[in-house]
Structure formats: structure tokens, C-alpha cells
């Protein structure tokens, strides 16, 4: 274990991920009842972890550039063909910042879910998986090698699968969890290829080793690895082609969604891109792709958020859109802007999700239309929601304004003016849906009476997060300097433009929703856009028709190929063949009723063609081999007629022929 320490020995930082991991290991083997009782263990573990990370932050305070670790430790994982492969953990300023952020959000969510899950009999299991997830995220943040990052990346995927599918008894969470895990794994294929390419190039996964040799990588290799990494990030952070899973992931318990699908896991993609920025910057095309993906995803998320009626879906699409912002920030090369927005977004989005949890708990519904006028019954929740929402919209004193403004300035300086316009449009739409939710949920006619204010255990974590959202805004400079860049306050003009953007969106929202003006007329005007938005721009339809249904058909066809054609061709023995014909009839019967329940017309035409092909050509081959050998056998039996005369003549005939051939022919040869 060699230490690459400037002068600090931060071995204890490793405890931060290990503590929740220990909690998970402790909780796992327990029986359900015992596990429910000691669901406090993970919370205690997280509190200690927070303490340690804050201590680390203090010790590391002046901070340094991203990528220069204060302290690093490496183990030899294995030797491959005599060449040692190592895994390592490194502590640098970015890692410490993320540690603090994750611990804070983690603790708030865990405290909140103490109350939220109190009447669910599998709450022990919920905390256990939550602990595993936090351990994985903290480890992910601290990892010093791409292999460790990938390993923990997939562990987080599993945890999100388990959490989304927590209530596995009913249909929606089951389907959503599988969809989420499969879509993220589609992204992981890219990560796999990138890993293989990078290892092939520089023989190791360590970041500093990669960055050292990246200069002399071949352009093809550079392209493959960056495309792979981008594809992985798109999968994990629900960017545009692979974003369908995040809205469905809301089927899981709200605190789970709050932690995973707002604050931590979804930003893992962004975090990985920041880590690998040195590699990506060498590839201008990759940067451009990242920027384009970021902006389009932001727009996509924002537009759809405006049309959602489910409170959590709105937040989900808003997360997609803010992630788009972060990716765009990376796209223009500024890691600090992305990280800053990542941090602030974590706080206010977690805040919004938890508050949404309280509202849902109180009104027992997720549909915003049935909520209304909650301000009077739930004053604290309203205040807290307002802080979060306005921070999201980018109102001046709140942290959201500063981090979004940072991104605007960075995009502006990068000269990509189309991107800046896009970002501004997203700003407008963001404030539009913020205001819309604000009015529909808290003002308007109060249509459910028994809404009651959240209890203390719910409100404490929420208010902590609200406080942080207020404070963070003023930390832009120290935070930037912590990450190694001298930050500056947003320029006056930029502040003005972003406020103007926010105000115009708010005004639009006010005019439409404040006074309950009927939105039917609006809907006719934009009916095309509205119907498209309802169907999430047909993204799901594309998945279904071009990937899922053909996959079902392909597997069915290949299995039939397997069972009939290869088997048929291989065992031509009559005796086996008889068994096979029974099998084919059985299969055909099942195929026909299989086709009936919903295969496309194309599919049915094809199977009929295949059947004809089967019965004539393939059976022909199988028959051929079988009958050929039996025909020869039968022919031989016919010769064996039992007549002695026939045998005598055969023998003598054979003898004479052989003698003639051998003696005469060979004699003369």
C-alpha cells in the first residue's frame, strides 16, 4: 500500500464508505422482525460518516485541483499474464465535497424515511438496501480507478433495482425496476467497451496512469473510449435516448426516489464525466456530443415537466432537465460549474422530493389536480416547498440562482450561443412548471379537507435541507476555490438576464394557472405538442416497437430454429426421428396458439412460411437421412429371402466374380 500523500494520512476517510457497508452486512442476515427493530444502525453509521467527511473537509480545506489526490491507497487485484492490475482509492477535493453532500442528503432522507416507512413491515429491508446504496455511492466517489468506479456503478444499479421494486407485489414497481436496471445496463455496455479499450491502451485502470498516457492514445481508441463513457453516462443519468426509465422509477418509495433519483445515483454519470474530463477534452467531437445531449435533454425534461399531473413525475422530469444542465456544463468543459450545480441541485431536489413525500402522505394521492389550497393547512411545508421550488427556478438569493447562473456564464463564455439560447428557454420553462405546481398544489380551491401538517420527524430533515439551500448560494467563491478555480460572483448582466428569464416564466405561469383559466383553449392551439408530450414524445413507443417486441419475436424464432432445424439436421436416425416428428407437431400446436395472443401480422405470415419450410425442406432432409439408412436395410432384408438356392447362387456368384476380377484383372495389371 504505497501512499501518494502530499503530507496528509487520510486513511480514516476510507471508513466513510465502509461504515454504511458494515451496517448493510450487519442488517442483511437478520430476520425481518429484528431488522425492523435495528433500522437505526444505518442512520448512526451515516452520522459518524458525516462527521468524518466534515473533518476531512476541514483538514483538506484550502483544497486543490480536481484529480490531484491528497492521499491515495492501491491494492494489487490480480496479475494478468504476469502484468499486475491494481485497484485504488483516492481522496481529492471533489471527492471530499461529494462525501459531505452525499452524507448530508443521506442522513436527511434516512431520518425522513423513519417516519415515512413506519407502517411498512419490510422497512428494515428498505434501510438495509439504502445503507448498501450509500456505501456504494461513497465508495464510487472515492474510487481512484475506473474499474472500482464501474464495479460500484453497477452495485448502485442493483440497489436502485431493489428500491424501485420494493413493493414487488404490484405490477408497476416490478416493471419499472426491470426497465430501470435494463436501460442502465444498456449504458453499461458502453462502459464495458470503454474499459476494455482503455486497458488495452495503457494496461491499467488507475486515473493518474490513464491521464499520463492519454496524450499518446490513437485517435480511434480515444473516440471509442469517450463514446463508451458518454453512452454510459447517458444511461445512468437518464439523458435523452435512455431517459425513459427515470419517470417510471417514481413507482418506488419517495425517500428512495429522493436519495437515488434526485441527489446521488443519477449524478454518478455526471461525476464520472468530470473525473474523465482530461480524456474527454482531448476529443472535441465528444465534448460537442455531450453539450448537444445535455441541452436537448434539458429541453425535453422541462417541456414534459410542464405537462405532468403527477407531482413526483414533475420532479422526475425536472431532475432530467437539471441533469441536462450539468451535462451541458461539462460539455463546455467547466467541471466546477457542473459540480456546483450538482451540489445545489442535490439539496433543493432532495428537499422538493421529501416535501412531496409529506404532501403525498398527507393527501394520500400523487395527482396534483386533487391537491389544492394546502397552504392554509400545511404552512411549514408550503414555506419549505417554496424555498426549494424557487431555488429550482433560480430566484436570486437562493443557491439555485447562483449555480444556474454559473452554468449560464460558462456556456456564454464558451461561445456556443445556440446552447445559451436553449439554456435560457429551459430556464423559462423551469420557472413555468415551478409556478404551475406552486399554484395548483398550494393555492386554488382546497378540495381535500383532512390534509394535516407533517410531523416533526418529517419536517426536521426538510428544514435542514431548506437552510442549506438558502446558505449554499453564498458559498460560490469558497467552493470554487476549494475545487481549485478562483470563482467570482456572477456578472451583473448575467444575473439580470437569468432573473429576467425566471420572471418571464413566472409571469407566464401566473397568467395561465393562478386564476384557474381553463387550459382547454390552450390545449387546442398546441394540441399536437400536447398529445406528443402526453406520450413523452413517443420515446416509449420507439422502445417498444423497435426493441422489445422484435426481441420477443426473435427469441421465439431462434428457439424454434434451435429445436427443429438444428436438431433435425443433426440426428438423422430413424428411431430418434420418430421421436422428433412428435415433438414438431407438439411445437406447431403451441406456436399457433402462441401466435394468436398478439404477435404482429408480419410475425404470423413469417411463421406460416417457416412452417412450410419446415414441413417440406427440413423434414425432407431429416426424412432423407432416416429413410435412406432404413431403405438400404430393407433392401438387404429383401435379398435375404430364406431360399437356400438364392443363397447358394449368391455365394457362388460372388466367389466367381471375385476370382475372375482378382485373378484375371490383377494378373494383367
Amino acid at each position: 500500500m504505497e501512499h501518494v500523500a502530499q503530507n496528509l494520512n487520510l486513511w480514516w476517510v476510507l471508513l466513510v464508505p465502509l461504515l454504511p457497508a458494515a451496517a448493510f452486512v450487519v442488517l442483511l442476515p437478520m430476520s425481518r422482525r429484528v431488522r425492523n427493530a435495528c433500522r437505526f444502525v444505518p442512520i448512526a453509521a451515516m452520522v459518524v460518516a458525516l462527521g468524518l467527511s466534515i473533518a476531512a473537509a476541514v483538514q483538506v480545506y484550502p483544497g486543490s485541483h480536481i484529480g490531484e489526490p491528497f492521499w491515495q491507497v492501491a491494492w494489487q487485484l490480480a496479475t494478468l499474464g504476469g502484468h499486475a492490475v491494481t485497484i485504488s482509492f483516492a481522496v481529492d477535493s471533489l471527492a471530499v465535497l461529494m462525501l459531505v453532500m452525499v452524507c448530508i442528503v443521506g442522513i436527511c432522507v434516512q431520518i425522513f424515511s423513519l417516519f415515512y416507512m413506519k407502517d411498512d413491515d419490510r422497512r428494515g429491508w428498505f434501510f438495509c438496501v439504502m445503507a448498501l446504496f450509500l456505501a456504494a455511492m461513497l465508495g464510487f466517489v472515492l474510487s481512484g480507478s475506473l474499474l472500482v468506479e464501474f464495479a460500484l456503478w453497477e452495485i448502485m444499479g442493483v440497489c436502485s433495482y431493489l428500491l424501485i421494486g420494493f413493493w414487488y407485489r404490484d405490477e408497476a414497481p416490478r416493471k419499472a425496476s426491470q426497465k430501470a436496471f435494463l436501460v442502465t445496463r444498456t449504458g453499461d455496455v458502453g462502459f464495458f467497451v470503454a474499459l476494455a479499450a482503455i486497458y488495452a491502451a495503457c494496461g491499467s485502470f488507475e486515473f493518474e496512469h490513464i491521464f499520463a498516457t492519454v496524450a499518446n492514445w490513437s485517435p480511434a481508441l480515444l473516440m471509442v473510449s469517450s463514446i463508451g463513457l458518454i453512452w454510459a453516462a447517458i444511461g445512468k443519468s437518464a439523458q435523452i435516448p435512455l431517459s425513459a426509465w427515470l419517470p417510471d422509477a417514481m413507482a418506488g418509495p419517495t425517500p428512495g426516489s429522493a436519495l437515488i433519483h434526485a441527489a446521488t445515483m443519477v449524478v454518478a454519470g455526471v461525476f464520472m464525466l468530470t473525473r474523465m474530463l482530461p480524456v474527454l477534452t482531448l476529443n472535441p467531437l465528444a465534448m460537442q456530443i455531450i453539450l448537444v445531449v445535455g441541452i436537448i435533454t434539458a429541453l425535453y425534461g422541462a417541456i414534459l415537466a410542464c405537462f405532468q399531473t403527477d407531482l413526483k413525475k414533475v420532479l422526475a422530469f425536472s431532475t432530467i432537465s437539471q441533469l441536462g444542465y450539468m451535462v451541458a456544463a461539462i460539455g463546455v468543459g467547466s467541471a466546477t460549474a457542473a459540480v456546483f450545480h450538482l451540489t445545489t441541485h442535490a439539496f433543493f431536489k432532495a428537499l422538493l422530493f421529501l416535501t412531496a413525500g409529506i404532501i403525498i402522505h398527507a393527501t394520500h394521492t400523487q395527482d396534483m389536480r386533487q391537491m389544492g389550497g394546502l397552504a392554509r393547512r400545511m404552512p411549514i411545508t408550503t414555506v419549505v416547498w417554496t424555498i426549494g421550488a424557487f431555488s429550482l427556478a433560480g430566484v436570486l438569493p437562493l443557491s439555485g440562482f447562483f449555480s444556474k447562473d454559473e452554468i449560464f456564464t460558462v456556456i456564454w463564455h464558451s461561445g456556443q450561443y445556440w446552447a445559451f439560447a436553449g439554456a435560457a428557454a429551459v430556464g423559462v420553462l423551469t420557472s413555468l412548471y415551478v409556478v404551475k405546481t406552486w399554484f395548483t398544489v398550494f393555492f386554488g380551491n382546497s378540495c381535500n379537507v383532512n390534509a394535516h401538517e407533517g410531523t416533526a420527524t418529517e419536517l426536521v430533515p426538510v428544514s435542514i435541507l431548506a437552510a442549506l439551500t438558502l446558505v449554499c448560494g453564498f458559498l460560490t467563491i469558497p467552493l470554487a476555490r476549494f475545487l481549485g478555480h478562483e470563482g467570482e460572483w456572477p456578472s451583473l448582466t448575467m444575473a439580470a438576464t437569468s432573473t429576467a428569464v425566471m420572471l418571464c416564466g413566472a409571469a407566464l405561469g401566473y397568467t395561465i394557472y393562478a386564476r384557474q383559466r381553463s387550459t382547454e383553449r390552450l390545449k387546442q392551439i398546441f394540441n399536437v405538442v400536447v398529445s406528443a408530450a402526453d406520450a413523452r414524445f413517443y420515446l416509449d413507443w420507439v422502445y417498444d416497437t423497435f426493441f422489445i417486441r422484435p426481441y420477443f419475436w426473435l427469441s421465439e424464432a431462434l428457439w424454434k430454429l434451435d429445436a427443429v432445424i438444428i436438431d433435425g439436421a443433426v440426428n438423422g436416425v430413424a428411431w430418434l426421428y420418430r421421436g422428433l416428428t412428435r415433438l414438431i407437431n407438439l411445437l406447431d400446436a403451441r406456436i399457433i396458439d402462441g401466435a394468436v395472443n398478439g404477435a404482429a401480422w408480419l410475425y404470423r405470415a413469417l411463421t406460416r412460411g417457416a412452417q412450410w419450410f419446415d414441413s417440406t425442406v427440413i423434414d425432407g432432409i431429416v426424412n432423407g437421412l432416416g429413410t435412406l439408412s432404413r431403405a438400404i436395410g430393407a433392401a438387404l432384408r429383401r435379398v435375404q429371402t430364406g431360399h437356400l438356392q438364392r443363397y447358394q447362387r449368391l455365394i457362388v456368384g460372388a466367389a466367381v466374380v471375385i476370382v475372375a476380377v482378382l485373378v484375371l484383372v490383377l494378373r494383367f495389371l
Partner: protein
Amino acid sequence: MLLTIIIALPLLGVLISALLPHRAESGAKWVALLVTGADFVLAAWQLVQRGITGTTGMQLETSLSWIPQLSVHYHIGVDGLSLPLLVLSTLLCFLAVLASWKITVKPRFYFAMLCLLSLGLNGVFTALDLVLFYVFWEVVLVPMYFLISQWGGERRQYASIKFFLYTFFGSVFMLVAIVALYLYTGSFDLTQLRDLIAQTAALKGAGIGSIQWWLFGAFFLGFAVKVPIWPLHTWLPDAHVEAPTAGSVLLAGIMLKMGTYGFLRISVPLLPQGFSGWQLILGILAVISIVYGAVVAFAQKDVKKLVAYSSVSHMGFAMLGIAAGTAEGFNAAMAVNISHGLCTGMLFLLVGMVYERTHTRQIKDLSGIAAQMPVYAGIFCFASFASMGLPLLSGFVGEFLTMVGSWKSPALPGIITVIAGLGILCGGAYMLWLMQRMIFGNPTPAVEGQPDITLREILCVVPLAALVLVIGLSWNTLLQFTDPFAAALVKILGA
């Protein structure tokens, strides 16, 4: 001498359990348990001891002359490649005996056959003489045939005959190749054969159509049936569906590894030029196996068939590792061998437990197991994630190294690695699809009221799970054995 004891111990089991009097029929399982257990302890002790001192070159070698005229020797030995497989084989045999505790139909013959199978498997992995290897290769065939045909499911007769004839068809070509090798070089001994082949002029000449190429092809047919590689795999699903639980565990857990072991022990080191001719074909077939196995598994209605096709897909990774020809590739092949043995062994044991309770393997009849049998569901999820290739578990080691190895290999184009990546995705797809239908959801009448997993059954599964975790966390526990062998192999190919 110790290695001969390890190999021959199951023979003791065969004799005792077959000759037990009728009254003491139930004693057969205790005899079998004792014998296979002792065998495993011995083998594991060797592994641990070797682990400490490191394995370079052949260990525990014994060589006695058997048929002097044909220079056939009883030559056995263990090295980095075969020691882990030997331990896995003894472990799985032990667990197979444990898993078939409730066998009532002719138990004496059943456990005799299991011990005979264990003997054959131990022999195959330690034989260093081609004739001895072929003898043990066929010995394994007979008990498996009887296991399937006597204690199998409804269509056991068709499945067992098909299993026997497929493998026999392959092994006949292997015999022809062995004879041809003997005639060219005059020796059957694996250790000397490599340099003998190198010296004989007739066997020079790489590339398609050279004699080495043909020999490799003959061996390929013999081993491909066993691995199984794509076109020759149709016996596997039938054999699995109809085999009893213990039969399936051994068939998938260890008998498929004989094919890849054959490639690594015989084909690649002895016929390097032949191998270079076949590399691309192997790679393509391997990738087809991966994707084909995964896609077809998706459409299965019977759990065992699904796991059988998953075995085709996983062994495809092992073959891709071999086809890559790089150090990572060979390590990958050996890692997939061991990890697939563990994961699929676990899956089959678990499926066997469900079958013992519900007597059905149709997925549509089984659902909501998590609600009814939570501990079982937990273990099943662990096994599924392991076989899906989740990091920190052994499945990931094999698949990751295959990807890295095949990308690095000069002979295989990059697209093959990408398709293999897609294969991993499809692998995840059918496993999740199985878990979603079988484990989650509301309990069906068949699953209703079923007792959760018992201690005996947990004992069957826990050692495998522990090994999966240990290998997954610290790769070196396994790779320290396989890497010296892989490095030596690469040096041979390089030379």
C-alpha cells in the same frame, strides 16, 4: 500417490454403495456423502497448500507405464489449470449427493453412478496422457447416460440417447485425432507432445488446410459438442430438463468444463499453428453462442431449459476468451469455467428445490416466491445477479476479462467485443425477466403455503455462494492459479 487417491476414492464409493444389501439401501447416500466429502477435503487441502506455495508447472505427478507397446502411460498431474477444476468437481459432487437426499428409486445404483461420475471427472482433469484422457472422457459419458435415463423426467429416454450419441459422435473424431497425433509423433504424453509436434516436419505449416489445422478441427468437434458451442448445443436443454437435480448440477456445473479444459489442455498448447488458423472461426462461433444462448433463453417456458441456455451463453464467454488468445483471454476462460460452475450449480440446486416442492418447472405456474419463501428468494436473487455478471461477484471476473482479452487480441475484430457486451446485456435481460415472473409478484396456487428453504438445502448452496463472493471480491484467490498457466500458454503461442 496422493492424486491417485483423490481420483480413485469415488471408486470405493461406487463399489460399496452398489454392493450394499437391499435392506441397507438408504445407507448408500451416507456412503456417497462420506466418500465425496473426503475427496473434496483432500482436494481442497491440496488447493490451499498449493495456493500458499504457488503453482508453476506440474504438481503431484505420477507416471506408470500401462500399455508399453503403444507407449501409453498412466500419467497424471495437476497444475494451475486443472487444480481449481478438480476442487470444483469434487465440491459439486459432494453437494450433488447432499442435494439428492430424497432419492428413493434404486438409491444404491443412483449413488454408485454419482460416484462413478465423480471418478470420471477427477480423472479427466488430471490425466496427462491422451489415451487416459480419452478413457476418462468416455467413462463420464456412461453414468450420466444412466442418471438421465433412469431417474430423469418424462422424455428422459429421448434426451439420454441424444446426449449419449452427440458426445459419442464428437469423441470418435477426437479418437481419430489422438491416433493421428500418436502416429506422427509416437507418443501420447501431453508434456512431451508439444515439443515433439514442434519438431516433426510433417506437422509444420500454419494456416487453413495444414495438417495441424485438420487435427485442431478434429479435436474441435470432440470438445465443441461438450462446451457446447452453437451448432452442436441442442442436446444440452433436453439433457438438462430431463436430468434429475444432481444430474443437472454436475452436467452444467462441471461436465461442460471438460470441453473448455480440453481446448486449454490439448488443442491450444499442442497445435499452436492450428489454433491460429481456427482463432477467428472460434471467436465468431463463441459470440454466436453468447448472443444465441441469451436470446433463446429469453423465450423459454421451463426454468431448467432457461438455465441450460444460459449455460450455452456463459460457456460462449469462455470460448471467446480462448479464441482471443491473449493472457487475459485465457484467464477469462478459466475464470468463467469456475464461476459458471458455481453460479449454475447454485441455480440448478435452487430450481431443484422448487421442483421438489411444487413438482412443476413451468415459469407461468411459479410466481411470488419472494412473498412465500423470502430466504429462498434472497439466495435466488444472489445467484441470479452472480450469473448476470454483477461486479463484486465471480461472474463479473470472467465476463470482464473476456471483454478485455478479446479487445486486446489481434486476431479478433473489435466488433466481436461489442457484440459480446450486448450478450452481457441480453444475459441480464432473461435473468431479470425470470426473476420478475418467478420471484416477485403475487404467489400462485402452486407456490402458496410452500415451506421456506431448509437447513440442509442452505448447506447445499452456502459453500457455492461463499466461493462466488470470495472470488468476486479478491480476484487473486483464483487468478493466482490460472495466471502462470495463461502466461505459459501465451508464451507458446507467441513462440
